[in-house]
């Protein structure tokens, strides 16, 4: 090892390998990613965020929200449930007898398939419902785990690394009320008791009401948190953009690599 050039060359090779694995490789695999079809639907996913929400991502970035919030829901796996849709005409009593003996919830995909086959063989009709499992899913933070597609059109991608606050990947579905989001930003403890979030009062203006009339976008406060009489709190355009972004965060469509059965109609359409 007397030769500095040998060291340099070999270390160069190591860094080059690392670069190929973690920069070039992912770019080749994902750099050309396109929209993907939504399962059981003719829609594609994702759509671009609407203009105000896209601007809101920049407010999210500028204020360093990702220092406390992640945008990545995780799941352990899936659980299947076999639901009898029709007992059929051939032998309805036999089918319902069979169904009462079978385990129909909390199944793996293979078990669900077997149960479904048995019901079909007996003459009934069954549907298999898939749902994601895991702590994040139980907390209601999402219907499925986050996938690369969720971030296709975002810049910068704000995955975050620490959960000082809850995950936000699906917050637009979980908490769709714009007034709630505004209140939460202005005075977090007015909506969530014991929240550790600092308030973002600088994104709002406290103004005197004109002729005692509230502005249309003034916040509706719960009891005990109202501003002084005759005053109102209105969001700045930054706050509106940020809330538009938060409401646009809903990763709630089933995809090939993250399937689940939609029980209530959810939509791929951007938030209003």
């Amino acid at each position, binding site marked *: 090892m007397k030769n500095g050039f040998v060291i340099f060359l070999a270390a160069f090779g190591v860094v080059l390998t*690392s670069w190929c694995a*973690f920069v070039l490789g992912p770019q080749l695999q994902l750099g050309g990613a396109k929209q993907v079809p939504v399962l059981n639907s003719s829609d594609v996913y994702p759509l671009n965020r609407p203009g105000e929400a896209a601007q809101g991502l920049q407010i999210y970035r500028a204020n*360093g929200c990702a220092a406390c919030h992640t945008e990545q829901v995780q799941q352990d796996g899936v659980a299947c449930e076999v639901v009898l849709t029709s007992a059929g005409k051939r032998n309805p009593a036999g089918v319902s007898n069979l169904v009462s003996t079978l385990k129909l919830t909390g199944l793996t995909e293979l078990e669900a398939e077997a149960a479904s086959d048995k019901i079909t063989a007996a003459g009934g009709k069954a549907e298999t419902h898939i749902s994601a499992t895991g702590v994040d899913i139980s907390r209601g933070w999402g219907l499925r785990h986050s996938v690369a597609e969720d971030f296709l059109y975002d810049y910068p991608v704000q995955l975050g690394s620490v959960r000082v606050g809850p995950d936000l990947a699906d917050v637009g579905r979980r908490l769709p009320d714009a007034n709630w989001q505004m209140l939460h930003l202005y005075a977090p403890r007015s909506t969530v008791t*014991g929240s550790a979030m600092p308030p973002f009062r600088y994104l709002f203006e406290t103004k005197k009401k004109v002729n005692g009339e509230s502005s249309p976008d003034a916040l509706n406060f719960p009891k005990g948190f109202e501003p002084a009489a005759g005053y109102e709190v209105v969001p700045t355009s930054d706050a509106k953009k940020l809330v538009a972004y938060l409401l646009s965060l809903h990763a709630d469509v089933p995809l090939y690599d993250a399937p689940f059965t939609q029980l209530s109609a959810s939509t791929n359409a951007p938030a209003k």
Partner: protein
Amino acid sequence: MTVNDTKQIDASCRVPLLVLFGGAAAWLVAGSVMALLASLTFHMPDKFGDCSWVTYGHLQPAADDALLYGFCIPAGLGVALWIFARLGQVPLRGAIVPVVAAHLWHLGVLVGLVGIFIGDSTGFQWLEFPRGGSALLFFAYLLLGLWAMMNFSGRRDSGMFPSHWFLITALFLFPWIYSTANILIVGWPVRGVVQAIIAWWFGNNLVFLWTSLVGLGAAFYFLPKFSGRPLRSYYYALFAFWTLIIFGSMRGVPVGAPVPAWLPVLSSLNSLMLVIPVVAIAIIGWKTVVGGTGPECKGGSFCMIKFGFVAFILSALLVIAQACPQIGRLTQFTWFGAAQTQLQLYGFFAITMFGAIYYILPRAVGFEFRYPKLIRVQHWCAMIGIILFVASLVIGGVMQGLKLQDPNVAFNDSTKAMLPFLRASTTGLLFLLLANLLFALNIFTMIIAWKWSVAKAVFAFVVSPLAKSEVKA
């Protein structure tokens, strides 16, 4: 090498080192003030709502970057410059270039930090500095790295020491990863989660690998020097070097991230393999130091570098622990990660640099520190601070993880459970601030004393009567 040669080599590094270390000390203090303010958010969240500059989302990234870019990198580069000059037995030539580069670097940090505060952050962890700041940093680093390499290639002693391998690799690692990250996720961003993957790759290579290379490069220079015997052994060091860069450079993507599954798997695998270099490095440290003729540990340079060395082993063990599936699942998204990062950046790297700087600066400048007794106090404060900070966040992180992984525990309870631990970590930050202030005090008084001595010399030269030979008849 005669004593005069050594003195000449030390003196040749004087001005670049004063600029690099002086600015670094200032950023160190600024960073710990910001970290402390950010940490106070958890104890009095309502106080920080009226101005964007004082919110956690601005303060915390700024504090992290002030520590990494403001202190760690310039301090590391200064120590590397000096070690190259000493090992190669060649004085640093053209010192004006590193002096200018050091100023550019600190200007870049200033631009970057102001950028974060006015909301111009790029939004990627460890890469928050906006373009203007990062361009200055890149250019300044190139100049400093080039000067170190020129000194290296002109060395009088043609041998390569273990410190050389570590420092040279670190020197070219930074421009590579920094340009890749800035071009591909700031300048001409790639699509979707590839941004996050590159940001993770960059963050790991800078925060873990770069600091490990420079910190160990310095430790492998100083530990034998203080112990009075050679590094044991050359081949262990060679083995540790190769395994460290191979496994250390190919990781960073966390488990469960919404990216192709092979990336987190490869990352975890390489993190686990880090156990190989860590064991080798621990053996080197043990065999070199234990039983040597080193001075008694009284809070001086030797003591700091030994502490930093142990902190490196612990920090790497935390990395390895996080890569174990059972532990990683528990500690993901908790304060555990922040504890590991701080142990790496402060416990290992900064404290190793303190030890090196306390040794180098008096030799380079030519006089002793103004308050030598405070060096020991500083070391105690830094040790207490970092132990409090890391221990509380590691334990707290595990507690938080247990609550986060239990769906029957409300999310707010996981936050509340952290409060006592955050109180302890804030106290730790207070000790770190004190340590940093004491460090800066010694560095600044030395700079002032040096400037004063230069001013006096200039004054004496101006007022001194001309020599007879120069007076024309």
